[in-house]
């Protein structure tokens, strides 16, 4: 279980302190799949990083009794000047896993070929997504945090993710941020809308999506 209690995150900015998370309380239980909708720049990625534990809180409390992945996102998690294989080595080391057992799976899953020995900074976003996803699969997490990356893959990548995440790891929890309506609707069991630094939960995806659309029309994105 992951439990956020009254979590607040304030950043310093040129315009003074900016509140990104404003007293978020949230519980993720084993096996649950949360989908989070929200406007660009509203703080969804911050929320995901806070859940992962990589981001210090301004106030509030987080309790984690299951292992949580790092946020699988376009930016972060990899060192740009290291090769894909070196990044795998680094991540295996810090999570206490043996790199040699994992390299074959990563090679096969990512289909990166010789790119695995090139610096990650030259990868396309699709290649990064495949690498991030494959590496996170090699370490046994109870909860996966997925920040947009799945949406960019091609058909074959999505099928493989589908198999790895939804068939082999059916019992794992997931927190997913995406703009892809179809993807969230298909894969998630709980739906949250991120608004004004807080989350609102809806019974069905349609309700959440309706509110999301209404919010976008009410006040066009200013952030």
């Amino acid at each position: 279980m992951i439990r956020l209690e009254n979590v607040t995150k304030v950043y310093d900015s040129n315009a003074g302190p900016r509140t990104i998370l404003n007293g978020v309380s949230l519980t993720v239980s084993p096996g649950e799949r949360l989908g989070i909708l929200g406007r660009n720049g509203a703080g969804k990625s911050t929320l995901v990083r806070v859940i992962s534990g990589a981001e210090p809180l301004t106030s509030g409390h987080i309790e984690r009794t299951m292992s949580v992945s790092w946020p699988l996102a376009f930016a972060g998690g990899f060192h740009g000047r290291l090769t894909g294989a070196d990044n795998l080595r680094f991540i295996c080391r810090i999570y206490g896993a043996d790199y040699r057992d994992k390299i074959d799976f990563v090679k096969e899953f990512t289909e990166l070929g010789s790119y695995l020995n090139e610096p990650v900074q030259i990868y396309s976003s699709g290649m990064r997504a495949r690498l991030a996803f494959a590496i996170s699969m090699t370490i046994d997490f109870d909860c996966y945090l997925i920040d947009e990356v799945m949406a960019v893959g091609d058909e074959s990548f999505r099928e493989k993710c589908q198999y790895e995440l939804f068939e082999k790891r059916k019992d794992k929890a997931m927190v997913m941020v995406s703009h892809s309506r179809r993807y969230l609707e298909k894969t998630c069991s709980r739906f949250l809308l991120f608004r004004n630094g807080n989350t609102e939960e809806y019974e069905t995806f349609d309700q959440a999506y309706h509110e999301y659309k209404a919010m976008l029309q009410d006040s066009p994105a200013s952030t």
Partner: protein
Amino acid sequence: MPSDIVTGTGGGMRHFLYALKVQRRVVSALILREIVTRYGRSNIGFLWLFVEPMLFTLAVTALWTATRTVHGSDLPIVAFALTGYAAMLLWRSMPARCMGAVESNRSLLFHRQVRILDVYISRIVLEFAATSSSFVLLGITFWAFEWLLPPEDVLEVIGGWLLLAWFGMGLGLTLGGLSEKVDLIQKFWPPFSYLLFPLSGAAFIADALPPSARELVLWLPMLNCVEIIREGYFGTKMTAHYYLDYVLIFNLALTIAGLSLVRQIGMTSNTQ
């Protein structure tokens, strides 16, 4: 292993020991990653770690030997240059590597167990290993060629060296932490450290100075440490001047300041 990744369970001592284990894992992974990006896999690879400081010391020794620079004593010049320059590399390289350390590892902070302090520790450990091994290897090499004699009191040399490394660490953490708050630190430190360089004992011993000037420059902790190193090295051949208690207090204060500055990083800044 899955339970290995869970945080917030267990209490007290067990939790502390576990956290220590994770930190050791992270720091060693960061050191290996630093070696790969800094020295690459090609050419002589991470051997460069030793060769780089070695070339510096060799060049300076050659220069000083050739010009017979006045350093205020009749101490053997090779050993004098080696102790002075190696010590200078030790205290200057740590701050140089600590400033901007967060920026180049920012993307790795996405992993919960990687803390900002770990980034600094890994760079400090790497610098310490590099400068220490170049000091030792060069000393042994020169000794083999009979250019210098081994130290009279090895333990005192080690003691002075460790004291200086501690100072470098405190300075690295402090300047690293400050540079995240104030960008200008990164610009001002290099010229400032050039100003300190001639005063820090690389090219003179304190005994050669008039007493009033000596008391003034001994406010610099690195000069005190170099004096200890040289006292261990040359023993009876020189009179050393230093204040051990002053250096200890200075180092302690610097370390506390550095740790608290590092802790402040990331609390309010956007790490994205």
